[in-house]
């Protein structure tokens, strides 16, 4: 386990190095001129030149990359062109909202996957459900997000349709509103935060739930025809018990891998969903960074997402080894 963690860490460092290299290359090929972007569109040429010098853009590429790495080592992701603040500060500010939404949608997705797999498994031959599942999985995320708002907020008014919290003056210690509400002793804040999370989390969870559910269903079908499941049935265990204690655990590996894959796609979907729901997270930040050619911000987010994904992957591998003790980490 220790060896595994050390290996994962080394791997993560390598990934970050490579990513920083890609990032750096992107910075160099971008046609937009960072000096011009920072100086502003109407700035006179002398000013742009001065800014260029200030940014060190006249140095050779290697020197620039070295400097870039050095800054990265100090968690310095550069300064945002748009907000004029260190990207690291911006990310720190937007990250909790994204983490909260991301975690909620993963949890919801896993729950959906479980329900769908169970439904499909227990009631075989439900072509309709399967078709609906594949269908929902084939809807562009921005459309499903907007349709969710349209129906559940605009038409039915069951749930809040945008934003993160109705309470204005609330700021908690962790930045996770649901947790903070409880910590601070204002459960109504937590309830409100949860309500606000339902629609965006649902939009994100649908593709996760469907993909993982399908994978889980397939794996269950395979596992449930294994000889050891027959042994378990032969012990007179009820079908539910067989499914839960023999089926699920042995079927966990493939859907867990699928979950990892879906988390990778989640990062892209977050951009869309946060934009549609006005969710003040990293996705929104990134979308706006794209709009204003704020490359340092985009790349900072890419690095943070990279770290998060490595983390998720590590957790998934640990989960897989817990489900199947034969997998040696």
């Amino acid at each position, binding site marked *: 386990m220790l060896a595994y963690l050390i290996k994962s860490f080394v791997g993560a460092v390598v990934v970050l190095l490579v990513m920083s290299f*890609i990032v750096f290359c992107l910075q160099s090929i971008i046609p937009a001129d960072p000096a011009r972007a920072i100086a502003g569109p109407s700035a006179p040429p002398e000013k742009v030149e001065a800014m260029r010098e200030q940014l060190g853009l006249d140095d050779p590429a290697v020197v620039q990359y070295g400097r870039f790495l050095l800054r990265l080592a100090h968690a310095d992701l550069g300064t945002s062109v748009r907000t004029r603040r260190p990207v690291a500060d911006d990310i720190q500010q937007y990250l909790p909202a994204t983490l909260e939404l991301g975690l909620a949608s993963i949890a919801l997705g896993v729950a959906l996957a479980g329900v769908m797999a169970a439904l499909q498994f227990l009631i075989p031959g439900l072509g309709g459900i399967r078709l609906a599942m*594949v269908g929902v999985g*084939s809807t562009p995320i921005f459309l499903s997000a907007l349709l969710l708002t349209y129906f559940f907020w605009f038409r039915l008014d069951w749930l809040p349709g945008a934003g993160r919290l109705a309470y204005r003056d609330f700021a908690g210690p962790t930045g996770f509103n649901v947790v903070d509400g409880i910590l601070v002793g204002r459960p109504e804040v937590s309830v409100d935060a949860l309500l606000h999370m339902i629609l965006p989390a649902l939009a994100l969870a649908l593709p996760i739930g469907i993909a993982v559910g399908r994978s889980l269903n397939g794996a269950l079908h395979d596992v449930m025809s294994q000889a050891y499941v027959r042994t378990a049935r032969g012990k007179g265990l009820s079908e539910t018990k067989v499914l839960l204690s023999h089926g699920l655990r042995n079927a966990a590996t493939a859907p867990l891998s699928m979950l990892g894959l879906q988390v990778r796609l989640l990062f892209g979907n977050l951009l869309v969903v946060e934009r549609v729901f006005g969710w003040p997270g990293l996705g929104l930040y990134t979308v706006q960074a794209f*709009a204003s050619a704020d490359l340092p911000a985009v*790349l900072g*987010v890419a690095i943070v997402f990279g770290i998060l994904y490595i983390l998720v992957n590590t957790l998934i591998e640990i989960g897989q080894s817990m489900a199947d003790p034969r997998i040696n980490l």
Partner: protein
Amino acid sequence: MTSRRTPDTLPARPRFNWRDFFRRAGWLESIGIFGVPVVTVVAVLAPWITPFDPQLRVAGAYLPPSAEHWFGTDEIGRDLLSRVILGVRYTWLPGLAVIGFSLTVGSLVGLISGLMGDKVDLVIERIVDLFLVLPGTLIALAVVASLGPGLVNTMIALAIFWWPWYARISRDEIRRLKARPHVEAARIAGVRGPRLLLRYLLPGVVPALLIGASLDVANIIMTMSLMSFLGLGLPAPAPELGAMTSRTLDSLTVHWWLPILPAAIIFFLCLLANLAGDGIRAALRGA
């Protein structure tokens, strides 16, 4: 250890035939398997089969679906059905191209990795791992943001992050196959080099790649539509379906057909591709 596949006393499974193939695939999935080539033909022929010129204004703007214009007309009076048919071309063919490119590059890399083994495999595997860990969509978006949106750039950006999947699949399959007795038997029988690869290994790798690829068509289409929504998809006038939907999303409550009908076609295309993937998997796994 002991495998008793075909009992000696019973007649073995009859030769492969398409009817069995489709029965194993399931009727719904068979529609998908038939649908994919049909859609591809429509995509290729799109410029010649649209009922109206998709570029020209042929009627008033914002006409709802009618007998003459089945999908209605768009904001400047072009026939939406014609635009959507052309959109199938701009959505489907790039998707296939990305898959095709990734498939070629990925499976080549995977083959090299799986065949060479040892150090080469180790190095290639690390590289593939690395690409698999990168937040692909985001970096693809960053690449497009840097290079500028456009068909080629979007496709490059997607392919960069898609090929490692196929490398992984083909490498794993090759390694699995290499350990199978029949490949060993072929080698003992004196089969070497390209002949071994082409006749004994590749046909075993293809099904897994085919399944992966058909399921990925939907993923590519979704990702492209996502990029369009973020303004980093295909350029404005190109009738890419995702772009058509996202550009007209604001008229959802007023002119519903503008975003919904292209989205319905995206939905339909993904559905076909997914069903085809499921079907091929079911049919081949049964074999």
